[in-house]
């Protein structure tokens, strides 16, 4: 189920960038955090815990780690600490992140 964003985005003169979320193209304002872009896009969970609960960005300041997503193949990336970039490949993180050697936290 796709839930509409829980925020209204004010129009401004910023340029936009495009990235993909699970393969779908998302347009976002330049300079904002990936977590903000995901929250602006939808009100749906951006990850699932080991127990299957949906979560999304919570604190927006790097404290809670609820915003973890996979960015360009790197799991456990804090979406609130990353600025959106053109061409970023973002995937939702479902359950435990895979063990992938050097990417392992």
């Amino acid at each position, binding site marked *: 189920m796709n839930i509409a964003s829980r925020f209204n985005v004010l129009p401004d003169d910023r340029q936009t960038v495009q990235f993909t979320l699970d393969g779908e193209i998302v347009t976002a304002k330049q300079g904002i955090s990936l977590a903000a872009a995901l929250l602006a896009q939808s009100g749906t969970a951006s990850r699932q815990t080991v127990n299957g609960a949906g979560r999304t960005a919570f*604190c927006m300041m790097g404290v809670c780690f609820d915003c973890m997503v996979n960015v360009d193949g790197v799991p456990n990336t804090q979406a609130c600490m990353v600025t959106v970039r053109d061409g970023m490949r973002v995937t939702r993180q479902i359950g435990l992140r895979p063990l992938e050697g050097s990417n392992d936290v």
Partner: protein
Amino acid sequence: MSECDLVIIGAGPAGMAAAQTAAQGGLSVVVLDEQPRAGGQIYRNVGENRSKHAWLGKDYSAGAHMVDGLDHPKITTHFGATVWRLEQGHRVVWSQNGISHITSTPHVFLAGGAQERPLPFPGWTLPGVMPAGAAQILMKTAGMLPKDAVLAGSGPLLYLIAAQMIDAGTPPKALVETQTPRMMLNAIPHLPRAVFGLSIMIKGLGLIRKIQRAGVPRYKSASGFNAAANTDGSIAFSFTHKGRNKTLNTDLVLTHQGVIPSTHISRSTGVTHRWNAAQVAFEPTTDIWGETNVSGLHVAGDGAGIGGAQAAAAAGQLAALNILHKHGRLSADARTQKATSARATLFRARAIRPFLDAAYAPPAEVLSPPDETIVCRCEEKTAGEIRQGIDEGVTGHRQIKTSLRTGMGPCQGRMCDATVRGILIASAGPNADPIAPPRARTPIKPVTLGELAAMAAGPDQSS
């Protein structure tokens, strides 16, 4: 060899004020901050927003000149820089874009600021529930305004955010306040002293008047928060008000129950911490200059006890003056003389705190929530599981951590330490031995093994 005279960790009001004072005094300063731009949480993104969003208020815009102050030949700034280790004596280890760096320095000033106090209740982990401060960050950084949100909890920031939302044309659906008349009564004895902070009081009253005039419903003395997801993804937020159960359906519940110092870094470095009973939080022990028991290490601003932005800027100046003195650039007399106005600001800003601490105290059920509440968001451990552990003989933070894994997830206890402690205290009763603060160890933020391995292969010594 030292690469600079002073490393400042945190570019909020305390860090920015300290950097400016220290650089003007002749020290070479490196400022590290995890966020992409200067300002801290309070002045988040202020450099980009200059007068763009009038609804954020003039106190916010006032932060812009502090950001400008960082533009100084003796100040080097690194943003997106996460400090994950601080060694006594002093080497600061920080990560930026997946690469770790080490900077050596004789003086470190920690200005890490605060985080919102967790406000746990059943359902607070659902998408659609977030801290009010987080929503404010979205307002400041992305021009995003919460739709039809319920603001729940208490404290000055809750009123400020409500007022900003009203001015932005998206007023909150309701304010659900945990404040009780009893808390106000407890605060009254602190009023005479609070008069020194009159301008802050007047601002606060203005915010409340704005909320009233906008006709936002207020439910005071509310308790028993609960959030459940409706089938359309909206949140059914229920609570008890005047003995009745009330439910509001909303897209977003924004919670706030004050802020607490971020102490992971100071705890990991061996700084002594004390329990601040009025603020219900641990804080590092310092003298009036922000100097700690660890040589060469100063801590000030909200990371050393909650005082707000003005107090933080003043405390940052004091710390910088003391560092200039220690560095042999200022005599003790000159230091004291230059400190006069910062001391006065600090006094005024602090005078109002006892009143605010008592008036907006966190209620018992926030500190020690009902059994079904998830306390540790990372490891999904509930208050009931923690209480069961206590019944089975577990006594402190560390035992709870090793037996239940609370605080072992990526946030390293930042979201559950305060609640675990609240449950321990509530279970032990008022006469029990004091509970030591939880340990914090390097790395204080997760680092990848790959990054560590690259460091071992040849540490990058550049600043």
